[in-house]
């Protein structure tokens, strides 16, 4: 096998910063490059990844069913209708908080690896409780989604602490999880006016390498309205930003964009 599987957790601590949007777009983008990819929703009780990816009506069995041996993994996996190599493993809507345990999650991830999935994207729930810890436990790499905002940055730092302590790699003393910063909902205009933390500020505070910057954009809401990940409509700046992130993640050199304010005309500046 040329490519061993990679388990990637998309995490943040704080809710509403764009974990699910990021999981959907990165999984779709990686799969579009022909890599066999699965996105797993770890948000048991509040599943949403299926909705954002537009496959909510095709959910029959879920992650918890598989863990409890009530269904086979193949029965629970949903194959995306747009990208052939993309699959979704939906979360259940059970309220049982302890539905996920390390043994069960590990078994499912191993089976996905055996099925030849190259990228296993784990969409973490918000918080730092069990669900979030299960999502990160088996990760090789982590994408830490952060908004340029005080509570989000602080929570991301807490999550970085957990990633270095409460994961399988930390417990067995293996190589540490590779962490990447993804700054979302970024507004270059506000940064320029000194009203928002800049990329540089956040990088300095968190001290992990930058994977990309996603600009604040209406396209994110519009794409989740439709259930079509934004990355599939390449005309938007969000799609371009996520595409950059995917290519950078897969090892290509891409310059960072959407960090500087767009040039506006004289009148635009005067009356902006």
């Amino acid at each position, binding site marked *: 096998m040329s490519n061993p599987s990679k388990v990637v957790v998309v995490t943040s601590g704080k809710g509403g910063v764009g974990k699910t949007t990021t999981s959907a777009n990165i999984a779709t983008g990686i799969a579009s490059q022909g890599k066999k990819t699965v996105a797993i929703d770890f948000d048991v009780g509040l599943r949403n990844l299926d909705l954002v990816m537009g496959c909510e009506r095709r959910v029959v069995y879920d992650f918890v069913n598989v863990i409890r041996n009530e269904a086979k993994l193949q029965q629970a996996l949903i194959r995306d209708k747009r990208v052939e190599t993309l699959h979704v493993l939906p979360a259940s809507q059970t309220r049982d908080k302890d539905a996920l345990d390390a043994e069960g999650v590990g078994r499912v991830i191993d089976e996905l690896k055996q099925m030849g999935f190259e990228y296993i994207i784990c969409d973490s729930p918000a918080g730092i409780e069990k669900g979030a810890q299960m999502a990160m436990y088996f990760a090789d790499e982590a994408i830490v989604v952060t908004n340029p905002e005080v509570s989000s*940055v602080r929570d991301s730092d807490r999550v970085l*602490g957990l990633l*270095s*302590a*409460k994961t399988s790699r*930390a417990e067995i003393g293996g190589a540490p999880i590779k962490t990447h910063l993804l700054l979302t909902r970024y507004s270059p205009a506000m*940064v320029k006016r*000194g009203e928002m*933390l800049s990329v540089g500020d956040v990088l300095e505070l968190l001290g992990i390498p930058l994977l990309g910057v996603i600009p604040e954009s209406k396209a994110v809401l519009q794409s989740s309205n439709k259930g079509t990940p934004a990355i599939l409509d390449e005309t938007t700046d969000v799609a371009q930003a996520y595409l950059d992130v995917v290519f950078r993640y897969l090892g290509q050199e891409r310059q960072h964009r959407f960090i500087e304010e767009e040039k506006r005309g004289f009148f635009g500046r*005067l009356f902006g």
Partner: protein
Amino acid sequence: MAFLDYFRRAPKSATLAKDRLSIIVARERAGTRAGVDYLPQLQQELLAVIARYEKIDLSHVTVNLDKSGGCEVLELNIQLPDGPPPPAPPSSRPALAQS
């Protein structure tokens, strides 16, 4: 209007955010980033032991965990009160091993 802002010198809230975050993040890292969460309890227990011999309060005992390179340093700072220490009352001394 934007051109009026040009003449106004408003305080930059982003700078404030960064300053506040630098402090809180550094403080929280001392406890959590290294995977250590017993520091507050350690501080309390040390205080209880020292208080048997010296009159001190919580602010006189600080516990810090620093990481530099591959090496972790647990720093204990115990500030003793000025002047000669009063003899500790025998009743407050810990009992010697009883077994």
